[in-house]
Every structure is written in C-alpha cells, then in structure tokens.
C-alpha cells in the first residue's frame, strides 16, 4: 500500500485489507459468546450503506454486520448498566458521544436486528461493549425485512 506501514487483516467479506491501527475498536470484555475477541475494525462500503461491518482482527471468518440503532428505530435510547459505561470509560456521559450499533441476524423467516443488546462504541477512545439492556423495552429480534424470494435463485 504505497510503502506505508499500515497493518493488514484478512476479512470475511472483503479479502485482505489495510486498516488504520488507530481506528481499531477495543472490546475490553469481548462480546457474549465471543469473550476472547477483543479487537475489531469497523468497515463501511459505499455499496452497502448504511451497513457497518465489525470485522474481528484475530478471526478472519468473524464479521458482524450492523446498523446504527437510530436508523432502525429513530427514538432509540440506550439503556446501559453502570458496569458497561465504566468499561467504555464513559464517566462524563454528557460529553461522551456513544454510537449504538444493532447486530443483524438472517433467519429463515427474515432479517432481524438486536436492539436489546446494542454494540456501544465510545467515539472518543474507541472502546466498545455490547450493552445488554436492563429492561425488555427493545427486541433482540427486531424485524428488518422479509427475505425476497427472487434472491434465492
């Protein structure tokens, strides 16, 4: 890559890419079910807007697809436990900008987003946690789309 020292990683969807080390996301506690996955990069592709791809830096075959929670539910409000905010280093919540991403799942019946446990990124220090809401206000399988049959050919 023009002789620069940018590190590379193998990705699930986009082959080998160069990424900016300073933009890597740190998950101090991993994600539930993936506790050892501590470092991800977030990738966006013009043809896949507004999708965000969370690619693991240690496991090429692990890449979550996500959407900003507000793109799904404009009135979305984060409900996070104190412990999660501490992991984010979001002490002064008033001044910290948190980005909430809902992870997406494709089921046989359609595409759903997990608004119940969004991935929350502190944009100031790039620390991230998956914040499980203390209430059941939002669904872990919020419907996004039915799978169009035409795509199955």
């Amino acid at each position, binding site marked *: 890559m023009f002789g620069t020292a940018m590190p590379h990683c193998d990705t699930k969807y986009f082959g080998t890419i160069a990424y900016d080390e300073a933009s890597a996301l740190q998950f101090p506690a991993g994600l539930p079910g993936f506790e050892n996955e501590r470092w991800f990069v977030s990738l966006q592709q013009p043809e*896949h807007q507004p999708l965000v791809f969370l690619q693991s830096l240690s496991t090429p075959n692990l890449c979550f697809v996500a959407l900003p929670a507000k793109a*799904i539910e404009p009135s979305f409000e984060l409900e996070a436990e104190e412990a999660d905010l501490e992991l984010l280093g979001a002490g002064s919540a008033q001044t910290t900008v948190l980005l909430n991403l809902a992870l997406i*799942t494709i089921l046989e019946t359609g*595409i759903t987003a997990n608004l119940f446990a969004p991935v929350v990124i502190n944009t100031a220090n790039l620390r991230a946690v998956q914040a499980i809401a203390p209430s059941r206000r939002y669904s872990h399988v919020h419907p996004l789309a039915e799978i169009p049959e035409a*795509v199955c050919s």
Partner: protein
Amino acid sequence: MLLIRRRAGQSLRIGGDVEIHIAELSPSRVTIGISAPREVAVTRSELALTERQNVAAAESLGPEALAKLAGGLRLAR
C-alpha cells in the same frame, strides 16, 4: 413454573447443594445470593439470550446474504 413466596433474609434450596438467598428487596429489584458448586454455571438469562443471538448473527450471514440485505430493509429515513 413453581412459584414460592419468600421474604428478604429467607432462602430456598434447589437440589442438595444449590442455595438461593433473598438478600435485599426494593420496589423494582431484588438482590439474590447464590451458593452453588463451582461447576454449576450461574448466568443472567439475558446474557445467555445475547450469546445465542450473537452466535446466530455470526453464523447466519454469508457473502450471499449481503445481496438480500442491500435491498428492502425497513429503515427510518
């Protein structure tokens, strides 16, 4: 589902070696102490739900699914 009424300070046993102690009650939450053998996993239900959903999210999406995702999402504008 078995329902049992207990007050703060009381406890109950499950099997021979699991004890649930009702430590503290408030109008909207309860603090529970659990004594169990080390090999018995104690997990918040919503954590198990999130684990299962994360595994499904990681496994269900393949590159071919991106085409499905690209069109027809119900998104706010």
